């Protein structure tokens, strides 16, 4: 019996879909059987980030309304051998086409076959959110260091704490080290203390995340990238390993630069 993890944030555009795609791929690379479920019905895009958009035949609503079997709707990712599958969202209807009960039974069915079921939650706290959370055992809240994202994360954590699931865990996405080091944004410690939930990991902002998403290839496929390392670390923590938090310091200063910085004080 696998585990269902919902990835949510409250605010839109903080990187739920990118996180879902990358964590799913990272877990699959670790040898786990993973199913990604896009619950953003009407605004699907997890398939694009994974580069699977042109292989969709059936979608989540087709499964729920009985037009096809679950395995017919699942799209297999060929890059990760028989490990990574996607259940795409429907594009032609809206979020009210599904009820939380239907969602729960669907996720329960998937959990029997997969080690991890990652549920990509839509932004907001309405029907779509309720559907996405219904079948989950655990929750991951994604935020960025912006106060608007943190405020919405706080709200969503409050809602998640009322659900019958484990306490949610936090991912701080899109960290801009120069802003954080200059106290222009809240730092990791402040955000974690403010939201007072466990920190699962941090992702440093990186342009390659966007360019590689545009190519339909999650950044974790590239092992030599800081953001990719962040996602791989988080995947290992989900699997129960203890991995130290990466530092957000800039490039190591050389001896000469260190001397200059001492004298320039």
């Amino acid at each position, binding site marked *: 019996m696998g585990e269902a993890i919902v990835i949510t944030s409250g605010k839109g555009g903080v990187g739920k879909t990118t996180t879902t795609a990358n964590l799913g791929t990272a877990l699959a690379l670790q040898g786990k059987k993973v199913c990604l479920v896009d619950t953003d019905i009407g605004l699907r895009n997890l398939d694009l980030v994974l580069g699977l958009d042109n292989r969709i035949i059936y979608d989540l609503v087709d499964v729920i309304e009985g037009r096809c079997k679950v395995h017919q709707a699942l799209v297999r990712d060929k890059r990760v051998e028989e490990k990574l599958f996607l259940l795409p969202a429907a594009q032609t209807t809206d979020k009210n086409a599904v009820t939380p009960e239907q969602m729960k039974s669907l996720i329960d069915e998937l959990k029997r076959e997969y080690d991890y079921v990652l549920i990509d939650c839509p932004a907001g706290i309405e029907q779509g959110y309720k559907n996405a959370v219904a079948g989950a055992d655990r929750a991951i809240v994604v935020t960025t260091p912006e106060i608007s994202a943190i*405020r*919405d994360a*706080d*709200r969503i*954590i*409050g*809602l998640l*704490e009322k659900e019958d699931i484990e306490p949610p865990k936090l991912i701080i996405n899109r960290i801009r080290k120069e802003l954080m080091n200059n106290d222009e944004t809240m730092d990791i410690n402040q955000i974690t203390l*403010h939201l*007072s939930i466990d920190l699962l990991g941090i992702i440093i902002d990186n342009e390659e995340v966007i360019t590689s998403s545009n190519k339909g290839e999650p950044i974790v496929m590239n092992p030599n990238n800081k953001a990719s390392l962040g996602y791989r670390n988080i995947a290992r923590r989900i699997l129960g390993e203890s991995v130290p938090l990466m530092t957000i310091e800039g490039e190591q200063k050389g001896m000469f630069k260190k001397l200059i910085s001492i004298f320039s004080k």
Partner: protein
Amino acid sequence: MKKQLVHIKGTKEGLVLRLDDQCAYAELVEELERKVSEGSIDGTVDVQLHLGNRYISKDQQQQLVDIVQYTGSMHVAKMHSDVITIEESREKLLTSQSETFVGIVRSGQVLESSGDIIVIGDVNPNGKIEAVGNIFVLGNLKGIVHAGIEGNRDAVIVASHFEPTHVLIADQIEVMSNESPFVKNHVEQLFAYLNTDGIISYERLQEVRKIRPLLSTVKGGS
């Protein structure tokens, strides 16, 4: 001789009508009507009604007041009864009790209390506490707090880290964006109260004992 059901006594503050608490209510009303119409008083006089161990409803209270004030020469200043209903007593108990909340009041959540409330944890921005009594936050207060929501102007708001966005006490509201420099520079261990002019003021929480000494509920000790 028949027992008198209404005793009239003169005091410095005016007349005291002591109403018998054993007879039937109808008899009492009848005798009160007679007694009140008998007397002839110049001007108006304040009257206190003592009901003893009789419980009367709101309607009956109004009826008694109407009877006494019918002649226009008497004004009911006070009505006193030695008994209250169990429900009223329960309400009183609730407002004098303090509740404890362990956790974090997050954005969009409202924590309500019918008495005092102690929060062991933080109140995050957009989180709200509404209490009939006082509010004590043993953590970071960064949200909205409303003490004395039913009009208790003696209610206070105490926090170990005092940085709320809105402070409300009884019917007064203060938006903290134009906060006083005092609050900005002393966010640690502060409390808010209504001063004698009815304006929300802030002071170090050590000053509570001087400004609201009656807040203390310690029993025993030496």
